[in-house]
Structures are given as structure tokens and as C-alpha cells.
């Protein structure tokens, strides 16, 4: 989780990403930031995020992103 927090710190979002539950629906994460986030996640956690997983539900909160990483690693 610490690595994920580091990645989010680099993104410089205008919101407290630790508590935000609508990162995508609230448009804090735009398409380009999502692309940048995906490549970082894939490199850091050695996973491949299929495009079908790029849905708001998976990226709306840091908890959901962590759950996605855990699921894909498993």
C-alpha cells in the first residue's frame, strides 16, 4: 500500500486521495492521469491491467485500486 501512496503523491491531485471515494466520477482522475497511473501500477507491481478493468468502480478510490492490484496479482 505504501508504494501505491507514493505513486498517488506523484500525481499531485487536487483532492485528499486517501479519503476520496469518487476519484473518477468526481473527475479528479482524467483519462491521461489514469493512463499514467496504469503504467506506474504495472511497472511497480508487475501486473497487467486489462482494458476491461479500466472502469470507474475500480479507480474511484485508493482502496478499490489496491483491491484491483491484489486481485490481479493473485
Amino acid at each position, binding site marked *: 500500500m505504501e508504494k501505491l501512496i507514493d505513486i498517488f503523491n506523484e500525481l499531485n491531485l487536487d483532492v485528499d486521495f486517501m479519503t476520496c471515494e469518487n476519484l473518477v466520477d468526481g473527475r479528479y482522475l482524467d483519462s*491521461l492521469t489514469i493512463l499514467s497511473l496504469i503504467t506506474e501500477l504495472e511497472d511497480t507491481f508487475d501486473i497487467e*491491467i486489462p482494458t476491461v478493468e479500466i472502469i470507474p468502480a475500480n479507480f474511484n478510490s485508493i482502496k478499490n485500486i489496491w483491491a484491483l492490484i491484489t486481485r490481479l496479482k493473485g
Partner: protein
Amino acid sequence: MSYFSILYLLAFLPLVIIIYNILPRKIRPIILLIASFIFYFIYSKWLVIYLLLSILSIYLAGLLMKHVNDRRDKALNEEIEDKKKIKTKYKNINKLILLVTIIFNVAFLFYFKYLNFFQSIFHLKNKIIKHLAPIGISFYTLEALSYLFDIYHEKYKAEKNLLKIMLYLSFFPTIVEGPITRYNEVSDTIYAGDKITYQGFCYGAQRILYGLFKKMIIADRLNIFVKIVFQDYVRFSGPIVFLGAIFYTILLYMEFSGTMDIVIGSAEIFNIKIPENFRQPFFSKNIAEFWSRWHITLGLWFKEYIFYPVSLSRVVRKITTFVKKVFNNRVSSLLMGAIALFVVWSLNGLWHGAGYQFIFYGYYHFTLILLGNIFEPTIINFCHKLKINRENIFIKIIRIVKTWFFIFIGELFFNASSLKAGMQMLKRIFTHFTFHSFNKYVLTLGLDIKDYIIMAIALIVIFIISILKEKNVEVRDSLSKKNIVLRWACFYLLIFSIIIFGAYGDGYAPVEPIYADF
């Protein structure tokens, strides 16, 4: 039978509502299906065959892919071979099924929509075939493809009931102009056969009336002015041409979003939830935001099925990994997005029509979004250094008005008869910028003072409703909590304003469904 026609509003829809509600729950989806095919047949006659072929193709392809996945799961359970090999083997079979079905469906779209255009591009001397396209082909083809992609990616299970797929692709409120729905979003409610409720009926009827209000009071009123300016632009000075572009943008929004109100309202009566296609687009502070508020379902379709798959494809990743090493993560994700955006906007432009002006329209928006992506961080830094609060109301208004300007220019090309005409109109705005005869034309091209006053009041009403929506106030919920006198007063006010102030009869020409031609 347009959604705004008396035939649809006072005969077809009420008849379907009555028959639907008196029959048992199980039969109701069949009634919607029969109504949808009657509706389609009235519009497109025997071209309904192409819709049926699309339905059958995705239904069979879905089942085939499901069968392949079942066999894969069985093989994986037996664990005889290497699991990765098994997965790849069955994935490849499904890839082939997907590819063949995509080609089959896109071939119809190409034949009806693009064949003539490409023949003219490559100067092919073959006879140009003049044909009418099956109505809604651009919309239902995208819906069909979304179903195929989702089944391929195992987002949900393939549908076994052919009637459900038939109703999904042919549903009469959405078949002509969308919204472009996803099967998993609508499949539950579309086939539920829920009884029509008083609230659902009232909400649906209110939404339909609001759509009529937008179209008949504003769009139809602006039509003659827009037609004359766009057809005969050489006669007019720059400000009139620019006013034509502004009026066309308003007309397009009122017509298209008004149609969506009727579409969503019609579905709401049957308790069927259809996704929204607009979210106050003229409150956008930049073009990228505009496209997340305008024709939302098309944008989401391109984002999910083109933008992400292209940007995360192997080829693009290889390029961007190299760029990342040389530059940094921001440049590589910018490039990744730029390549995918280019593909998205090439297709988006072409989707809107087979013509150079539509291709230009696509690249125009691509350029604006790309420039926004590149310069946004610099602008944020600049504002930060100068202590300019971008969320300040005056700055917001400046940003919104700036976005309007770019939208008006884009729509000028969108409605121009050709790319050349669009260019000449744009040039004319600047080279013939004189207010000489401005007043004369403003009041003689199908609009008089009375028309302007009616439109201004109607636009203020729509503006207030839009602000409430922007603040997440559900206007109909608030209205339903008011006392019965006020509720019915609003209802009657809406009905009578359409009857009294609607632009119909002598001196007006109703707008033809614009997006139905796409």
C-alpha cells in the same frame, strides 16, 4: 415517424402504453419488441433485414464465445495441458469469432454510410449507388460492437434469450438517435415488464414535454435563419455568419438534447432507465470537459473501446516506454494519450458523417484537446504563480465563454455543406467583419422581435433548470413534493407554452432529426 411527430406522441406511444399495461408482465417485453419493429418498419421498411442480421450475428457470436469459454474452463479443470497454453488457444478462437462478427457488422455500416465517400476519394468510376441507410445504423452498430467486446472480455455472460438481444438493439425510443446503451446497463429493466406507475408516467411525460419545449420553441424557431445563413453565406457579413454558427449550436443542442428528453422520458414511462446523453455541456470550462458532457454515451463508447485499448496496446506501449526512458512519465503518458486520441477523433469525425468537413471536425477537436493536455499544467503553474484563482466565478465565466467560441467554430464546420464552405465561412467572419446591415438581417431572416423575446425567455428557463441540475437538484423530485395546484400549474404552463409559443405553422420549418442521419 419522428419522436416529435403527432403520430408518435399522440398515437403510437399512447397505444403502446395502453397495450403494455393491460397485458400480463410476461407478455409486456414482447409488446415492446413488436412496437419496436413496427416503429422501425415505418421508418426503414425492408431495411429492417439489416438490423435483424446484426442482431442474429451478435447473438450467435455471443453464444459461440460462451461455448468456447465453457470448453476452456472444462479443459482448465482437467489440467492435462499447460494452463497458459489452454487459455491462449481458446482466446484465439474467440478472437477469430469476434473479428469475423465485427467485420460482418462494420461492413453494413461501411456499405451504407461510407462507400460513396471512399469511391469519390479514390476517384473510382463505378456507379455511385444511391441508397437509403437503415435508420439508426450508426447507433445500433456501436451497441452491437459493445456487446461483442464485453462478451469477448467476459464482462458478463452471453444472452441465451434471442428476444432480449432483439429488444436491446431495436428498442424504439433509442433506435434512431441513441443514447448508445450497454447491454448490462439496460438488460434488467428493458425486459422486466414492470407495470407503469403513476410516478413513472408523470416523470416520463414531464421529460417529454421538456424535450418538446426545447425543440419547438427554440430549435424550430432558429431553423430558417440557420438554413439561409449556411446556404447563402456569401451574402452576409462576418457577424451574421458568426451569429449563424451560434444559432446552429443552440439549435443542435435543443434538437438533440430535446430528442434525448423524449427518448429517456418515453423509456421512463415503461420503468426503463436509459443513460443520460448530456450534462449541461455549455458549463464546460474547456473542450475536453465539453466532450465529457456532450453526447456522453458516444464519448464513453470511444473511451472504453478505442481510447484505452489503443493507448495500452503493445505497439503504443513500446513507443512510450522508449519515450519514458528518454524523457519522463508525463511526456510518455501525453504521447500515449495523443496517439489514442488521434485514432478516437479520426473515427469520431467519420462516425458523424462521410465528408471532409466531418473529418476536419474530428481533428479540430483532437487538436484542441491535445493542446489542452499539453498546456494545462503550464497554465495551472502560471495561475498559481500570479495567485489567480481559477475557480473564481469571473475566471470561470471567461473560461466558459472561451470554450463556447471554440464550440461555435467547430459546429460551423459540422453544419457546413462542405469543408470548403466551412473554411470560406470562417474566413468571412474575420475578413468581412462589419456591422453594416446587421440589424436588418437579424430581424428579417425568419426571426422578428417577438421571436427573440420568446427564445430569450425559453433560454432563461432552460438556463435556470440547468443550474439546478448542475447543483444536483432533481427538478422533477422537487416539483413532485409541491402541492397539487402548483404541480399542475407547471404542467399546464409547459403544455400551453409549447402550443402558444411553439414555432410551427406558416413561416416556420421544423428541424429534421439531425442525428438520425448519422
